[in-house]
Each structure stands twice: as structure tokens, then as C-alpha cells.
């Protein structure tokens, strides 16, 4: 028996990474700021995004959203109430979005072109594990964490929080009854992703949301400048 070792050094997610790089180029060329929202199920991504879409739209920005879900278009219908174009991506059991799904749903999206947008939000499937491995070409990956989930979530899912560019704590309006330890949560996030921007928000009361919108505006200006 003659055996031979073939050196490959090939990334397992190479195909996704290449597609994501292509998407990143087309986002940049169109001047659209693209964000990928990740969290566990029920962290409040949809409510947070509803508020964000509505407010950005009211202030004259051109916004749209792609929404990933295993099944149902419930979230897409909720978001569409903001008046922004929303397209559902049903993954049918796949626990994350990948670059190919994004590319397919951007193509042939009636009435929406990248060049006609200021912001594109991608609401990922609720899952704090697999989406961290799949680059969607986004400029900013936002990890959301609600006050009901426990302050140690970043320590339990370090791969996700470490890959994020911004962290959003949601449902701050019920922080007190939940016994949420704010300092501990901030410390934990910072241990996993030192220096990350952290927003403490409530989509219900609007707390912290102005700061979030300012951040979006700055990031978009940075991209074009």
C-alpha cells in the first residue's frame, strides 16, 4: 500500500466566504450599510428591528430588511408594518442564513435595489451558534441579548459575541423586575469582545434607541467617507 498525504489547506466554508466577499463588494459599491442581527430566539430582534426601520424611515432614510426564519413569515409581516420593504427567507430547518441565500433573495427583489438603499438589515435565524460561522458580507454584526436571558450569555456563547461588532441589550424596561445585573452583563460582554460598542435599549420605551440611530448614521457616513 502506497499512501500519500495531499496538503489542502482549504477552508471548509470557502464557498460561503467567497460569496460573502462578493456581496461585501456590491454593498460597498451601492453605498448601503448592511447589518446582520443575531441572537437567541426571543431576544427581541424583531421588535428592535421594527422600531429601527420605522424610525429610520420616518427620518427619510431608505431602509429594507431580509428576515431569516426556519418556517413562517410572521416576523416579515410584523416588520412590513413599518412600511419598509421586507423579504422573508425560509431556511426550512437550516439553523442559519448563508451568503448564497442572501444573494438569491437580493436578486429579483421586486422594487428593491442595493443602490436604492441606505440601510439593509438582515435578521438572522434565532441561534447563537451556527450564524457566527457564516459571513453574509455585512459591515456590522450585531449580537442582541435580552435582560431576561441572564448576564452570562456572552460567556456561554463566546464564539458569537466575539465575532460581533456591536452588542445590543434589549428589553431594558423590564431589567429591574428580572433582577438584571447590568454591570455584570457589561463586564461579561467586554471580557469576550473587548472594546465592543454596547447599546442598552428598550424598543418599548425607546430608551437607548437614539444612541443606536446615531451609531448607524456614523457608521454609514464612515463607509461613504
Amino acid at each position, binding site marked *: *500500500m502506497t499512501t500519500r*498525504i*495531499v496538503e489542502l489547506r*482549504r477552508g*471548509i*466554508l470557502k464557498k460561503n466566504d467567497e460569496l460573502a466577499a462578493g456581496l461585501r463588494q456590491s454593498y460597498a459599491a451601492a453605498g448601503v450599510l448592511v447589518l446582520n442581527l443575531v441572537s437567541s430566539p426571543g431576544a427581541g430582534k424583531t421588535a428592535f428591528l421594527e422600531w429601527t426601520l420605522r424610525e429610520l424611515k420616518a427620518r427619510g432614510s431608505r431602509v429594507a430588511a431580509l428576515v431569516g426564519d426556519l418556517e413562517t413569515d410572521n416576523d416579515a409581516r410584523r416588520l412590513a408594518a413599518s412600511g419598509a420593504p421586507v423579504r422573508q427567507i425560509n431556511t426550512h430547518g437550516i439553523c442559519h442564513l448563508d451568503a448564497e441565500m442572501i444573494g438569491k433573495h437580493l436578486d429579483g427583489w421586486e422594487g428593491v435595489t442595493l443602490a436604492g438603499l441606505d440601510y439593509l438589515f438582515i435578521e438572522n435565524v434565532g441561534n447563537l451558534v451556527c450564524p457566527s460561522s457564516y459571513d453574509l458580507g455585512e459591515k456590522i454584526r450585531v449580537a442582541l441579548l435580552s435582560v431576561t436571558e441572564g448576564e452570562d450569555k456572552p*460567556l456561554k456563547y*463566546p464564539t458569537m459575541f466575539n465575532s460581533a461588532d456591536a452588542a445590543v441589550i434589549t428589553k431594558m424596561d423590564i431589567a429591574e423586575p428580572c433582577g438584571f445585573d447590568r454591570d455584570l452583563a457589561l463586564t461579561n460582554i467586554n471580557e*469576550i*469582545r473587548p472594546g465592543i460598542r454596547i447599546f442598552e435599549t428598550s424598543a418599548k420605551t425607546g430608551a437607548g434607541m437614539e444612541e443606536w440611530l446615531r451609531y448607524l448614521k456614523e457608521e454609514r457616513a464612515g463607509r461613504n467617507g
Partner: protein
Amino acid sequence: MSIVETVTETLAALPDSSRGARVLEVRLRVGALASVVPESLEFCYGIASEGTPLEGSRLVVQVLPVVVHCERCAQDAELDGVQSFRCPRCGELCGEIRQGRELEIESIEIDELDKVEETA
């Protein structure tokens, strides 16, 4: 599971010189931040490789620890885990990751004799 499938797809697309050869071993490099559990990968590998040229081959997973760059020490440092991104020398929080996100096939070992017999 999708990772295992990608491995089999990648190997199915190997150059002609390796076609028909039996794969004995597949070596992966997996960073500690790659969101992959080596035990699950090994478990799935046996199932996913059935009926492919990889059936019966060994999967060897090398886990790479996280390496950060510490600005205060001006050098790289290896971390024991992924629970805290502090420099083990000086305690500074380090945001720059130098290693730990890898997810790649390093190499495969193939049995060439089978190939020679088939092509002869």
C-alpha cells in the same frame, strides 16, 4: 452536518491525480472560536461519509487555541480558553484575534495503490 458535507464535496472535486484513490485519513484544523464541537463532528463524519470515497476513513481534528495580540506586551499570547480575552502575561483585554477562527481541511491521506490498480 453541513461541515461534513462540505468536506465530502471538496474531496469529490479533487484533481485527477487523486481520482479513484481511497481516502484513509482527513485532517481538519478547527479554531477554538469556530463554533464547532469536535466530538459532534467526529460522530457525524461516520454517518455523512457513508457511500462516499471517505467511507471508513479516519477524521483527525486538531483544535487550535485562541491567540490574541496584546498591545501592552507588543506580542502574541495563547489563551487557555474562550471565557476571557485577557493577556495571560499582563491581564490586558485584547481585541485582536490572531488565531482561533480557523475551520479548514489541512490535508488528506490517500492510498495510491488502489488508484494504480484501477488505472492499469
